[in-house]
């Protein structure tokens, strides 16, 4: 059944197998066919045919290959022949075309381009004179629409390399890669014309040697007949974009008309075109142009905004300009440039001929110039106005010459005219600029005035300055020469009176912000600047007058620390407190300067200050213009009569040394390897206050050490000889010195205070080490040591260092006295020491006498021991233990001695008085307690016993005191504010002060201390023979104050000298030592004058200027307010005065300078006034001047001369005393005066030969008399209306002394005998001597020897009628 019967399932399998084989066979066959040359040829022909149909030209394809599975096709040597004649370059030729396709939709059979590469494409368009081209004409298919799409190409990426577009043999290279490219062209047979469009999403391209750049472009164009019309072209790259449209009207003439508008980001343009100077800005172009085969031209307007142009030597920022432009293939013209630059404006014109010419001037000079090509020639003329100088300075500032740091301001105007042939960089520019300062400036700005004329040569980059004058308020610079970016040869004369204007430049150079010079005068430089700007050489003469150098003290550098490299002293100074900077004035500094970045030379340098002058020469090598620690240098310093203090300041030291130095030193090397030698002489020196006549030493510098050899120090007969050395780096020292013949009396420090020392000292000392670890050995001896004239014997002292320990020993003995000092000091750390002082029978009279002002009445004696332990470098930690076993002091015959040892200790600056018990006659005093020697200075003392007050006056010899004082007092609080509690009893004491007229005696009473108050209880005393009761208190908290009431009875006061008064008083003394007041009432019960007291002399003395009183005297600070009255009709009786009167005065002012106000009425009496006795009939004396004692008199006194009773009136103050004269019998005033002065009346005088008045005297008298008459008449008229009054012109006039100046001396030698002596000063041998003897009151005998030598006698009988 199986054999004969067909299985349908098996049959289907066979059929399927057969179909499979058939398909396989078909696939294999297809594959074979596709790779067969036949298929290749078919495809190639098909492509050629299609392209030929699309272009209309003949097409050749050399080779065509593809890889189907990659959809990649490659064609080589593809050529499209247009209508060009044979032999011409074909219409289009591509060496290789490579494209990759992509299947966009298999169902719709859409395939797109992924990649298209054209290698070396050459597009050749021939435009014939008749306008025809070799453009092939596509073949038209009749059945289709008139517009036929020739191609519609879109590709993701297209790359054209080594391409070329040749239009009439003019090649334009094309080399770009573009993405997202779509190009389409269609043929409109109705035109006929071609419509094309091109879109490039991103194109990367480059021109020539510029940087490649990317752009986006769109273009629409129409090609119809002889016209080619670009309807729109937009291109955008970054912030730049171009919009253009244009057309070629006649392809035969190839005349292109273009309208364009472009905005270019100049920063991008600069980057692409490798013009790095162009940093910023935007260029707008708006114009149109035409282009033909032979020429082109364009006109339009350009604007540039925000242009930044930066070159190494010039930086211009934010410039904006606008101009029309006109350009063709021969000329570029910017006719009306208007630019805004640096705050000002520039207008001008730029014209360049043959601007497209590549021929440069240098080529012109070549041997074979091409005459048909003209050289490029340009010119530019600018007028500028108001251009900010700060902008210009900023533009030309460089890091090496940062002129912009000086904030110069000014407005620049002028002209710049430039011409060039060939390249612009070869331009020659003429500058004529003037700078005017602004009207108002801020303090930070430096206004500049000036002119600059010069020529800039672009070929060499040199500015040749014909003349330049620039001046600021303090600086003036004149310059001439050349200045270039690489070299300069400039002659400069600069003068400034304010270096502060140049400080910013120095600061920019890396130096200090402030120069270490404070200029008061002028700094002048006259020299040249050459070399490169970045490394200039400066040579010339520098002079600075009247300036201060500012030097930072060395304390700013720590010990062993060196100044940091690159920092100047001034920079250190500026970082420190300016108050510590030391200033030193100099009159002048002058030097011949030669500076280059590698060397500095100062020659013939002189620093002068007053009489001192330092001359020096310096040669130093520099490292990039700086002096470093390793810079070698040589210096020769010669100072003549220089102040040591000034040299110290220069060297950075500040020791208490002064004097006049002559220094001659040569040094060389570097700072660390300094070598040199010299000689130093110092005269009239003062070292730590000690005068030194002369000091000299040889100085050697080596290995960082200063060695002083042959040291000689001389002061009077004293000499110090030796050698010393000091290492500046390690601070190590060594010395060996010998000194002798030092008279201690010549050492000021030993003569200060109350102790004066004398003696001869000599020493030997040698030492080494460092201040922290010294080794010192010394012997010191003083012979005939005398303190305050008291011999203290000889003193010898030794110091020996063994290892770290210094052993001290000293000894002195004279007579029985013995003083030894022994101790050790460890010369490490804080110098811990243990020193003991032992003394016995020590005569300390000089010490006691110094403080008790010589009240010693015997020899003192002291014995004991004092031990000190602790660090000598920290004296406050010193521990002192003392015990005085014996003390004996005889004061004012009171022998004060101790009872038991006096023990005390000092620890942590606290004095502990452990035991003190002193005994003397009437004195038994004990004290214990503590007192702080620093800080709050607290006290805790207990004093007990009684004291003889005579000891008190030893403290101040102005006081005299006696009596006994018992005390039981505790003192707490502080020294400034002691709190005292206790009780003091005064018994039979007395005290007086030398300046006070009265002292106190028999003082008895109790004083109670209550913290800060001393209360006076039951105090009585006697003074001036009267009694005095005192109550009140004294406070002594922060200042001593008092309020004491005194009741006095029958006290005699002898003040002023010559005046004795008895008074009762109730006065109060209150206030403080600085301001106290004495108030109360004083009633004078008796008043007496010393027979020698002359009231006139006293008044004259009171008119003298007050003596300068001690401002600290208690009398100066004691203000008075006393009311002084007298008992009614107080009688004053003396041998020459007998007065009665009343006194009512106020005593004011101070006790040192009292004033008096009030009135004294004199009722009757006789006084002795100006050497003459007068009977006072009545009078009063008033005191009205509150500033001084100035009595105003109104006294009527009578006296008798010859037979006349003369009454004188004294009126007014004693300084302006006016005197009235009356006489009985009556005489004219002139007669009275003549009588008083000459002893005779005018009538009698007329008998004497008197020289007649000359005319001048008469005129003078008349004028003065008339004036006086008029004055008095005026007053009379005012009061009484009477104008007829006569004033005798002779009163007070020359008639007073009719025969010249005379001196009259009248002396009453006895009650009844008066001698008068009159001499004429104008004539010799003319004396009148008269002797009047009053026999009785009515009868007198007068003997006269007149000026003629005639002696006459008169007997006068007076009879007075009433």
């Amino acid at each position, binding site marked *: 059944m199986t054999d004969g019967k067909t299985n349908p399932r098996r049959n289907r399998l066979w059929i399927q197998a057969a179909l499979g084989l058939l398909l396989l066979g078909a696939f294999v066959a297809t594959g074979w066919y596709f790779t067969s040359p036949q298929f290749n040829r078919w495809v190639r022909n098909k492509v050629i045919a299609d392209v030929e149909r699309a272009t209309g030209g003949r097409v050749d394809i050399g080779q065509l290959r593809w890889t189907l599975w990659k959809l990649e096709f490659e064609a080589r040597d593809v050529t499209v022949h247009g209508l060009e004649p044979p032999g011409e370059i074909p219409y289009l030729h591509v060496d290789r075309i490579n494209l990759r396709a992509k299947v966009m939709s298999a169902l719709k059979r859409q395939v797109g381009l992924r990649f298209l590469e054209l290698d070396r494409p050459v597009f050749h368009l021939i435009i014939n004179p008749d306008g025809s081209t070799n453009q092939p004409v596509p073949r038209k298919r009749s059945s289709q629409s008139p517009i036929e799409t020739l191609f519609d190409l879109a590709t993701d990426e297209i790359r054209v390399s080594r391409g070329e577009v040749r239009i009439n043999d003019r090649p334009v290279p094309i080399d770009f890669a573009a993405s997202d490219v779509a190009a389409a062209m269609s043929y409109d047979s109705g035109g006929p014309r071609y419509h094309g469009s091109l879109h490039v999403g991103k194109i990367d391209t480059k021109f020539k040697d510029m940087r490649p750049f990317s752009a986006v472009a769109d273009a629409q164009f129409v090609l119809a007949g002889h016209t080619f019309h670009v309807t729109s072209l937009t291109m955008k790259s970054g912030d730049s974009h171009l919009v253009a449209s244009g057309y070629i009207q006649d392809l035969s003439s190839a005349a292109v008309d273009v309208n364009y508008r472009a905005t270019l980001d100049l920063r991008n343009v600069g980057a692409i075109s490798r013009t790095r100077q162009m940093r910023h800005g935007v260029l707008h172009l708006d114009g149109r142009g035409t282009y033909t085969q032979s020429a082109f031209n364009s006109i339009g307007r350009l604007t540039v905004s925000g242009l930044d142009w930066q070159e190494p030597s010039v930086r211009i920022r934010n410039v904006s300009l606008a101009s029309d432009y006109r350009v063709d293939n021969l000329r570029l013209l910017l006719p009306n440039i208007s630019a805004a630059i640096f705050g000002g404006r520039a207008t001008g014109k730029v014209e360049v001929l043959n601007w497209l010419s590549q021929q440069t001037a240098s080529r012109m000079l070549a041997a074979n110039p091409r005459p048909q090509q003209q050289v490029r020639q340009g010119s530019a003329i600018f007028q500028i106005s108001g251009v900010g100088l700060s902008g210009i300075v900023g533009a030309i500032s460089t890091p090496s010459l940062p002129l912009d740091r000086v904030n110069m301001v000014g407005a620049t105007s002028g002209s710049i005219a430039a011409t060039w042939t060939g390249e612009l960089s070869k331009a020659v520019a003429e500058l004529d600029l003037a700078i005017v300062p602004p009207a108002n400036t801020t303090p930070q700005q430096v206004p500049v005035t000036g002119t600059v004329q010069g020529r800039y040569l672009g070929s060499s980059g040199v500015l040749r300055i014909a003349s330049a004058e620039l001046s600021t308020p303090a600086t003036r610079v004149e310059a001439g020469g050349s200045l270039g970016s690489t070299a300069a040869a400039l002659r400069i004369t600069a003068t400034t009176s304010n270096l502060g204007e140049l400080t910013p430049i120095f600061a920019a150079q890396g130096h200090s912000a402030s120069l270490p010079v404070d200029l008061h005068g002028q700094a002048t430089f006259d020299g040249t600047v050459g070399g490169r700007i970045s490394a200039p050489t400066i040579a010339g003469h520098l002079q600075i007058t009247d300036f201060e150098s500012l030097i930072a003290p060395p304390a700013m550098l720590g010990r062993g620390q060196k100044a940091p490299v690159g920092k100047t002293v001034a920079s250190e100074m500026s970082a420190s407190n300016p108050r510590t900077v030391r200033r030193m004035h100099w009159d002048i500094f002058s030097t011949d300067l030669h500076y280059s970045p590698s060397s500095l030379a100062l020659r013939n340098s002189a620093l002068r200050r007053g009489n001192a002058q330092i001359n020096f020469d310096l040669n130093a090598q520099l490292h990039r213009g700086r002096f470093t620690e390793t810079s070698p240098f040589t210096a020769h310093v010669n100072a003549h009569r220089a102040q040591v203090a000034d040299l110290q300041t220069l060297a950075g030291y500040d020791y208490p040394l002064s004097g006049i130095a002559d220094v001659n030193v040569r040094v060389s090397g570097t700072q660390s390897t300094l070598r040199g030698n010299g000689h130093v002489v110092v005269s009239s020196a003062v070292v730590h206050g000690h005068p030194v006549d002369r000091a000299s030493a040889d100085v050697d510098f080596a290995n960082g050490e200063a060695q002083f050899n042959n040291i000689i120090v001389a002061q009077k007969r004293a000499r110090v000889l030796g050698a010393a050395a000091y290492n500046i780096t390690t601070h190590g020292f060594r010395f060996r010195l010998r000194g002798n013949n030092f008279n201690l009396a010549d050492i000021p420090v030993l003569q200060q205070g109350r102790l004066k020392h004398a003696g001869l000292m000599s020493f030997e000392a040698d030492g080494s080490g460092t201040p922290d670890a010294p080794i010192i050995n010394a012997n010191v001896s003083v012979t005939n040591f005398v303190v305050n004239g008291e011999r203290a014997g000889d003193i010898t002292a030794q110091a020996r260092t063994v290892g770290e320990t210094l052993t001290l020993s000293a000894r002195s003995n004279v007579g029985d006295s013995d003083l030894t000092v022994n101790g050790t000091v460890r010369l490490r750390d804080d110098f811990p020491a243990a020193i003991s002082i032992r003394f016995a029978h020590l005569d300390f009279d000089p010490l006691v006498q110094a403080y008790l002002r010589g009240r010693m009445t015997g020899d003192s004696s002291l014995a004991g021991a004092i031990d000190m332990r602790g660090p000598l470098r920290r004296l406050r930690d010193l521990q002192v233990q003392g015990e005085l076993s014996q003390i004996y002091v005889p004061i004012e015959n009171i022998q004060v001695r101790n009872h038991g040892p006096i023990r005390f200790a000092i620890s942590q600056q606290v004095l502990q008085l452990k035991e003190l018990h002193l005994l003397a006659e009437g004195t038994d005093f004990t004290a214990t307690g503590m007192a702080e020697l620093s800080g709050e200075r607290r006290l805790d003392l207990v004093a007990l016993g009684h004291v003889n007050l005579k000891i008190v006056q030893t403290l101040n010899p102005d006081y005299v005191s006696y009596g006994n004082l018992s005390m039981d007092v505790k003192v707490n609080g502080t020294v400034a504010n002691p709190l005292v509690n206790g009780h003091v009893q005064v018994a039979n004491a007395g005290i007086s002060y030398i300046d006070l007229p009265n002292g106190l005696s028999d003082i008895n009473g109790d004083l109670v201390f209550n913290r800060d108050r001393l209360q006076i209880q039951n105090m009585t005393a006697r003074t001036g023979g009267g009694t005095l009761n005192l109550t009140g208190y004294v406070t002594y908290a922060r200042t001593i104050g008092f309020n004491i009431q005194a009741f006095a009875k029958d006290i005699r006061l002898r003040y002023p000298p010559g005046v004795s008064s008895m008074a009762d008083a109730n006065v109060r003394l209150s206030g403080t030592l600085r301001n106290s007041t004495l108030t109360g009432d004083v009633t004078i019960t008796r008043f007496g004058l010393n027979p020698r007291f002359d009231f006139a002399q006293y008044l004259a003395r009171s008119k003298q200027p007050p003596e300068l009183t001690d401002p600290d005297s208690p009398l100066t600070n004691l203000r008075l307010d006393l009311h002084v009255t007298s008992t009614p009709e107080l009688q004053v009786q003396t041998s020459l005065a007998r007065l009665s009167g009343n006194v009512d005065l106020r005593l004011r002012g101070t006790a040192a300078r009292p004033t008096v106000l009030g009135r004294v009425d004199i009722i009757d009496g006789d006084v002795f006034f100006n050497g003459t006795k007068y009977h006072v009939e009545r009078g009063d004396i008033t005191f009205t001047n509150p500033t001084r004692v100035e009595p105003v008199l109104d006294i009527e006194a009578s006296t008798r001369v010859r037979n006349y009773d003369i009454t004188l009136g004294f*009126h007014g*103050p004693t300084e302006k005393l006016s005197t009235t004269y009356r006489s009985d019998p*009556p005489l004219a005033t002139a007669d009275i005066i003549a009588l008083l002065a000459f002893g005779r009346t005018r009538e009698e005088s007329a008998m004497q030969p008197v020289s007649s008045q000359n005319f001048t*005297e008469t005129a003078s008298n008349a*004028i003065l008399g008339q004036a006086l008459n008029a*004055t008095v008449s005026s*007053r009379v008229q*005012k*009061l009484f*209306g009477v104008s007829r009054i006569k004033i005798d012109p002779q009163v007070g006039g020359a008639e007073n002394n009719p025969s010249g100046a005379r001196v009259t001396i009248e002396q009453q030698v006895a009650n009844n005998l008066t001698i008068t002596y009159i001499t004429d000063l104008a004539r010799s041998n003319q004396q009148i001597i008269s002797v009047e003897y009053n026999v009785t009151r009515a009868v007198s005998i007068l003997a006269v020897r007149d000026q003629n030598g005639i002696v006459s006698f008169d007997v006068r009988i007076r009879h007075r009628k009433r």
Partner: protein
Amino acid sequence: MRRALQLVLVFVTAGLGSAYSGEVIDRIVAVVNRGVVLQSDVELAVRYEAFLEGRAVGEVSDKDYRKALDRLVDQELLRQEMGEALTIPASEVQARVAEIRSQFPEGRVESDWQARLGKYGLTSADLAERVRVQLELWRFVELRLRPNVRVDDSAVDSYYRDEFLPRLRESGAEDVPLTEVSARIRQILVERNVDQLLSAWLHNLRDQSEVHLELDKHSPGVVSSAERVANKAQ
């Protein structure tokens, strides 16, 4: 009835009094604080001044009268300041009177002198009294003011240089050294200062005082004041 008669007599007397007022023998012309200046004082002063100046009484004008009144007010103010009168010795008064008398030709003969006094309505007692009063006031002013005057050397120099020397040169005389004339110049300056102080003092006194001039209330009388003076003199 008796009471009624008394009333009638009183009214009759009062009516007669108003109808026939008596002669005005004097009048208050100024009240100075609590003091008064009488018309007779002014008239006496005017006549005294005319006497001294030798002017005829008829020449006295009302202006002179008013000026004299002003001066009397000033004198009254000073007198009130003075308090108790200063004692002027009679001899001094007489001396001054004698000095005045010596200045007139009539002074040599007593009768002539009296006649001249009478011409001005004055007596010797009147003259002495006026002199006394003036001396009193003069001394008081001197005592009060002179102590306050200070003249320093510079003022003397200034006067010498600016006033004295120019006048001396005008007269044709040679210069005189300052030392020779300084004392007198100082005296002149003292007097000048006293003068100035006096003016200031009087001004202050008037300011601080109550001064009422009653002159205006009697204007009819005032008009004839000068005539009254003349009449009195005759």
